[in-house]
Every structure is written in structure tokens, then in C-alpha cells.
């Protein structure tokens, strides 16, 4: 399988002060479905930003599709063939839909990506209509983003990326704030995209979806380093790892594929009951 992303000793520090990633070594190959797991602030979103060439490693090297991704190469995308290729190949769905929905109507939002990539206007319209139909959001096409519900916004965000038809899809906490029905719809969509051969990389701490949307899991610790990188079932059965990385509480249990918490009470300093 072709290696699409290769991170060598990558670290990232915000404002030269706050460490977000520490000495990360990773390779990702085409067609993989990967979940990046970790507690809040462990560096998941920063890693996605690096994978989307939105920020650049403070130290270490990042290669995408065999070429180095550097600020110098991506600063000006004008007349940059690799930049255009990269943007066509890799799409990101941000955690906050309001960041991603900057156009005044749903139709314009979905048409934005194909337009910027220089597709002919007829092709842009055809694609936009196709994605709107596929996502079942025809009734939203003329609506302004601020009039949409949370689930509708998420659908439009995903549609706005799918219209570019990227081979690599990066998703940051995709199920955050979604109702159960929309979550299920999203899981099925990601499964369909995976079957079509897309690479899907999801940053999440929603353990319920990990095994449904990915085969490989990477766990970040609160010290911003990788604590595990293995098959999903191996990681999900390692309760000690999940507890130490703050992904589950010590009162969370796993029965087969079901993970759940028991209600418990504390009575005194060291005693508790289930």
C-alpha cells in the first residue's frame, strides 16, 4: 500500500510555550481507516491540522505523498502544483461547523471547494447538485448557515468536503453534539466511503464509534506522545491503557463490544459501591 503520510519526530509547540505534540513518528497508508484517540488537549486536533498542512511542525519532518510539506512550499499556493494536488486529495471536517460554513448559502458552501480547484462552472454545479442529492439536503440548498440546526450544519460541512472528492478525509470530533440518528447516519456514510477506498482519519474521544469507523487506533497520552498504535480491537480491549490516557473512567466496564459505566456512590474516603 502507498504511504500517504509520514511523520518523523514531529513536535509542535503553540506560542513557543505550550506543547501540543511531542516526537510523533507515524506512517499512514492509502485506504486505511484510523481513529486518533486522546483526552481533551492531548494534541489530536493539532495532528489533524498538520496532516492538512494548516500548521507545520515546530521540529521534525512531515511528508505527504512522498514530498516534504513545509511552510515555504505551502505559503503561496498560487502556481504550486503540489499544493493544488494536496488540497484536492486531502479534505478536513472541522470540529466547529461555524468555522467551516463561511458562505451565505448551503449551495455556495458546497460549490466553494470545486470552484477554488478550478473546475469548469458546469462541472461545479453538477457536483454540487450531486452531493446535495446524495446527502439528502435538497431542502437546505438556499438556506443561510445560521438558520441550520447542529446536525444540518454537520451534514453541510461534510458535503462541502465531499464535493472536492478527496481521497483522504480528516474528521475532527465528527459526532460531537449530534443526536443518535445523525450519529448513525454519519457512521454509515463513513463506512460507505471506506468501502469506496477512501482514507478516513478521525480524531475522537467517542469510544462508541471507534470500532465502527476504523481498523487502526492511535492513542495519545496527556503528555502529547503516542501511547499506542495498533489494531482497534487490541487498543479497545486494553482498559489499562484507556484508563491511563483518561479515555475511560475506572468505573467503566466492557462486556463484549459494549462499553458502559456503572453508577456508583462514594461513602467514606476509600469505599465505594456499584
Amino acid at each position, binding site marked *: 500500500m502507498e504511504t500517504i503520510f509520514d511523520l518523523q519526530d514531529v513536535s509542535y509547540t503553540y506560542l513557543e510555550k505550550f506543547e501540543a505534540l511531542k516526537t510523533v513518528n507515524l506512517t499512514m497508508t492509502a485506504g486505511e481507516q484510523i481513529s486518533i484517540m486522546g483526552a481533551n488537549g492531548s494534541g489530536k486536533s493539532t495532528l489533524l491540522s498538520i496532516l492538512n498542512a*494548516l500548521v507545520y511542525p515546530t521540529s521534525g519532518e512531515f511528508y505527504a505523498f512522498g514530498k516534504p510539506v513545509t511552510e515555504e512550499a505551502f505559503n503561496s499556493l498560487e502556481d504550486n502544483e503540489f499544493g493544488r494536488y494536496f488540497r484536492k486529495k486531502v479534505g478536513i471536517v472541522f470540529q466547529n461547523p461555524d*468555522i467551516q460554513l463561511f458562505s451565505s448559502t448551503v449551495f455556495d458552501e458546497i460549490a466553494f471547494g470545486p470552484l477554488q480547484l478550478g473546475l469548469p462552472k458546469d462541472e461545479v454545479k453538477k457536483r454540487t447538485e450531486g452531493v446535495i442529492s446524495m446527502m439528502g439536503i435538497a431542502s437546505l440548498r438556499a438556506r443561510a448557515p*445560521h438558520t441550520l440546526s447542529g446536525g444540518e450544519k454537520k451534514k453541510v460541512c461534510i458535503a462541502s468536503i465531499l464535493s472536492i472528492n478527496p481521497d483522504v478525509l480528516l474528521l475532527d470530533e465528527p459526532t460531537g453534539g449530534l443526536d443518535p440518528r445523525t450519529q448513525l447516519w454519519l457512521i454509515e456514510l463513513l463506512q460507505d466511503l471506506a468501502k469506496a477506498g477512501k482514507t478516513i482519519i478521525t480524531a475522537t474521544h467517542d469510544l462508541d464509534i471507534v470500532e465502527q469507523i476504523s481498523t487502526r487506533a492511535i492513542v495519545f497520552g496527556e503528555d502529547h506522545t503516542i501511547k499506542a498504535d495498533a489494531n482497534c480491537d487490541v487498543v479497545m480491549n486494553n482498559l489499562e491503557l484507556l484508563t491511563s490516557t483518561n479515555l475511560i473512567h475506572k468505573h467503566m466496564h466492557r462486556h463484549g463490544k459494549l462499553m458502559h459505566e456503572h453508577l456508583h456512590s462514594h461513602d467514606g474516603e476509600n469505599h465505594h459501591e456499584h
Partner: protein
Amino acid sequence: MLPEWMKEVETGPCQCCAVNVGKKKSFVEKSISGALNFFQDSLISEGFAKRDGLLQSLDPRVKLISAIVLVVAVSLTRDIRVLFAVYILTLLFAYLSKIEVLFFIKRVWVFVPIFAGIIVLPILFNVFMAGDSLVTVATLGSGAHLGPILLPSTIYITRQGTMFAITFILRVATCVSLAVLLFLTTQRDVLFKSLRSLRVPKVYVLTLDMCYRYIFLLMDTVRDFFTAKKSRTIRSLSVRDEQRWVAGRVGYMLVKSLDMSNKVHDAMISRGFNGDVKLLHDYAVRKRDYAAIATVLMFSSMLALISQNIIRI
């Protein structure tokens, strides 16, 4: 786990607890209402743009250019009868575009006293514009002065000043009516894109479009600030403390909007934006659009000729 004070539960207010009722709203309540009104107004306006009326059926570029040409022609017009006729025409077009005329009049006249009334007020008096007396305001006697300015012995409202003020206000009202008609009958995104027909650079059109979109988001955030404050306000603070809180929120909004603008830029970059803006718009100019622009051009030319006394009425 819980500290002792947190384990105390009150059963309810005591019987002597007074319920004071007042009509005056606090600034928090006013701000929340203001934000809600903003959303309500924008929804109503968007609703008009989607109606099946006369102006809604025209090409947005035709409407934009027509509105600009008419505003220039009206600005040249000095005859109060002509101005009145044009103003009545705007009401007729509002009616034909399925806009409630009373709503339209209110929307226009909210702005007119603010922008025109204050400017034109001094012109009414003989202190600034000599003319025939209409109403005497004060008799000061000879030698009266205000600082270095020598005042006339009698201050009165002049007939000429009144006519000038009415003409000026009517001119402003007509121009505002034309602009409001354009806004109410055209969807915002289409209106902004139609600016391209005036060769407005694409980057400004995109920025304007995005500004309009994010005003709603930031307004929503402001409403959340005030709602959260309301929910936790147990007693009123001093004016100074309230001012300090508002100043703090203003600063926070600035930081938040800057942070958001960076993230939005990232989202644009990730979807292939490289500084060269590309916009998708489809316009189909029909016979009625040609007829509309021709009529507007003829009418505006006629207004200009009347203003120059080439055509006399």
C-alpha cells in the same frame, strides 16, 4: 467530596419575600431583546426577498444599477412635487413587490429623522438662512449675541428654510426608500454577487458576503453572554461594575473574532483557496429586465432634465 456548605438545600423563599414589579428593563434585558430583534428583522427581510413580487422577479444587477441611477437622479431634483411623486412611486413598487406598505414606510422613516432631521434642523431658523417669517420663536432685542456670533433681534422659522428642509428630508426619504426596496426584494448573497457587475473586486464581494454571514454568529455569541449574565445575576451591580463587565466582553469578542478569522482562513485554505477568489453566479437577463433598465434610464434622464430646467413642469 462536596464541601459542607454545598450540602445545604433551601426549601423556598420566606413568606415575607417581596416581589417588586417594574416596567423599566435592565441593560441586560434590553441587549437580549436587541439581539432577538436583529434576528427577527433579518428573517422578515429575507422573507420579503423570497416573495413572488414585481421587483423580486428582476435580475439583481438590473435592480442594483437602477437603484444607483435613480438615487443620483433624485439627488439632483429640487422640485418638491417631483420628489413627492417619486416617493409615492416607491410606495407603489413596494406594494407591487408584496411588501406591506406600512412596514416599508416605518423601515424608511426610522432612519430619516436620524440622518436628515438633525442635519437640516438649523436651516429652519433665520440665524442660518434669511427668509420670510413663518413662526416667531424668540424676541431677543438688538445687540444679542451668542459668544462671538451676533444674533438677529427676532429669531423665527423662515418659509424658505422650511421649504428647503422639507425638500431635503423628502429627497433623503426617497433615496432611502430606493435602497430599502433594493435590500428587501433581493437575497443578500445574490445582491452581494451582483456588485461584480459594477466591477467591484471579487475579494471585496467575498469579504462582504462573509461579514454578513458572521455578524449572525457573533450576534448569537453576544446574546449568549447576556443570557448567561442574566441567569447568574442575583443582584444588580453598580453602573461602573456593569460598564467594566461590558468592556470586558467587548474585548473578549474582539479576541474571539480574531481567533475565528484565523480558523476560517484555515478552512478556506484547506478547500483550495489561494487568494484568487472564484464566485459562482448565474444570471439570466430576460426581456422584462431590459424593459426595466430602459424605463429607469429614461425616467432618471427626465428627472435630470427637470432638475436642470430643460423640461419645465
